[in-house]
């Protein structure tokens, strides 16, 4: 089997007396979608923030291509090829698509001027590659749909060298059709073969549609993991509800 691009071993993160992550293991492979599932408060956000360099782990190790790394800032993580697309997307609505795409990493000419035409073209082409033909990249992002904004944020992360793409609930705030658009985008990125995707979601159907591998978190622990083929529907539902048996839940509900 191929080597995982990113490997996490026994990751523990404590905030004072509170243990947010109590020893999580994770392996993500290039060209695969790794779904990270779990209820609210399961530790998903803490895990991705640790991978993105926002938090430093209390214990445990992160390996990139087999080498241990330590991230002291989001910049370190992004330099190591970890591109995080947060729920708020880190996008400015009043700015144009291109200005958002290159925000903080603008292409400059000899006099410090922006190479606007070139940037427009790159922004347009990069978004086209993963599925949106946005004809006018000078238009404000406020005019785009939620799904298109996701695509912009994903295209931006890839263009600036992400080898691991962390998508934080990219489908959660969207309508049905746009959710499918985002899933299509995920598939297209996966098809490139060189990028590992961590897809965080609440949605069982979405994860089934695009996921290769699953990790389930509950109360800061890994409670289950496996490939799409290994995990059956019943098992998946049980793990998604934090390990409780559906039957037990039905009984509890019936008793009220």
């Amino acid at each position, binding site marked *: 089997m191929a080597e995982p691009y990113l490997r996490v071993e026994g990751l523990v993160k404590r905030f004072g007396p509170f243990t947010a992550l109590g020893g999580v293991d994770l392996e993500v492979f290039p060209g695969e979608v790794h779904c990270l599932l779990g209820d609210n408060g399961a530790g998903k956000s803490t895990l991705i923030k640790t991978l993105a360099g926002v938090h430093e782990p209390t214990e445990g190790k992160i390996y990139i291509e087999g080498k241990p790394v330590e991230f002291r800032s*989001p*910049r370190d993580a992004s330099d190591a090829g970890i591109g995080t697309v*947060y729920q*708020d*997307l*880190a*996008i*400015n*609505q*009043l*700015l144009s698509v291109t*200005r958002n795409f*290159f*925000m*903080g*990493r*603008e292409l*400059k000419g000899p006099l*410090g*001027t*922006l190479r*606007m035409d070139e940037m427009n073209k790159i922004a347009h082409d990069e978004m*086209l590659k993963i*599925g*949106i*033909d*946005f*004809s*006018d990249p000078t*238009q*404000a992002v*406020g*005019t*785009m*749909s939620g*799904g*298109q904004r996701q695509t912009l944020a994903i295209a931006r992360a890839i263009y600036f060298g992400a080898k691991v793409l962390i998508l934080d609930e990219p489908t959660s705030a969207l309508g049905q059709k746009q959710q499918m*658009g985002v899933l*299509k985008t995920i598939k297209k990125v996966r098809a490139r073969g060189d990028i590992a995707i961590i897809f965080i979601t609440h949605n069982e159907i979405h994860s089934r549609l695009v996921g290769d591998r699953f990790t389930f978190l509950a109360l800061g622990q890994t409670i289950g993991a496996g490939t799409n083929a290994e995990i059956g529907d019943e098992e998946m539902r049980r793990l998604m509800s934090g390990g409780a048996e559906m039957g037990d839940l039905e009984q509890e509900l019936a008793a009220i």
Partner: protein
Amino acid sequence: MADTSESGRLKQETAIEKLLRRPEIGSFVVMLVIIVALAIASDGKSFNALGLKNNIAIIAQYGIIATGAAVLMIAGEFDLSIGSMIGFAGMAMSMMLKWGLPFGMGEATPITAFIITLAMTLALGWLIGTVVVRSGLSSFIVTLAFLFFLRGVTEVSFRLINKSTQISGLPDYKEESWFANLLGGDVFGWFYDLWFMLGGNLNRRGEQWVEGFDARFLWWLVIAGVAYFFLSRTQIGNWIYATGDNKEAARANGVPVNRVKIGLFMFTAFCATMFAACQVFDTNTSDAAKGNLMELFAIAIAVVGGTLMTGGFGSVIGVVFGAITVGLVANAVFFIPAIDGAWFRVFLGGILLAAVFANERIRKRITGGI
């Protein structure tokens, strides 16, 4: 398959529709209306040789500080200390010219007085910016504190050293110093020479009437031009817009948000200093009350020019139009003696409110109603 279905829903616009969506369009139309109305009401007097000079003088004053205020507003912050900074800078410069440089460094020249003053105001701008970004407090309250603080320091310094809150009768530095002339002298003399040659610009004796515009006209054009260039064409400009629109998003993408803000507080301090320097070297006087309320005019003009109060959107060109509009109306009383000068404030209040509503509509249209 490319997902064109949604972007296709954006209507293809004609050139005129694109023009109508520009942020400057509202302030441009208002400016045209005011120019025409004023020309008619003043019987052309407001745009004769002297009228034009006097109008441009006040427009340029407003324009200089409004540019600073607008760029800072685009980055999402306010500066209420502009007016007091003008008073402080004017005091510092004129006192050095009258009483010599501090710490017994000898006589001041216009250059040394200006440079030392600028160093102080830039340091104050840096301090204000640093307090705002480090404390996370609203710039409204921090700069309000500096409004009082600087005005107080200005008055106290005047009384302690000068025994009076005004300085008048400084020598006319423009005569010998090219530097003072650059700030307080005349510019664009060729314009009035040409006008004279073409048969206009005559006084009662039939000689050339006006020699040139006040130098602050040039400084306004320079400051507005540089601000326009940086905002629209450079990386710094993109950072300024990004900072004002969504600070956290900008930071997450590696924009040095704090440095942008501190730099812009220094820029408003610079604009206030230029305002004061032009005034001091033009009139050879100074007064502790100079620049009073100017911070509010600067903000009002920025808003009339289409700058959003919430940041992230605005244009220097719009602010140029706004400065022309407000400057003309402020001066109108001199050309139309029949009207009460206080109507200016009535007008400014009305147009400000209208501009806020118009800007809010623009913002909604861009962000899709959020």
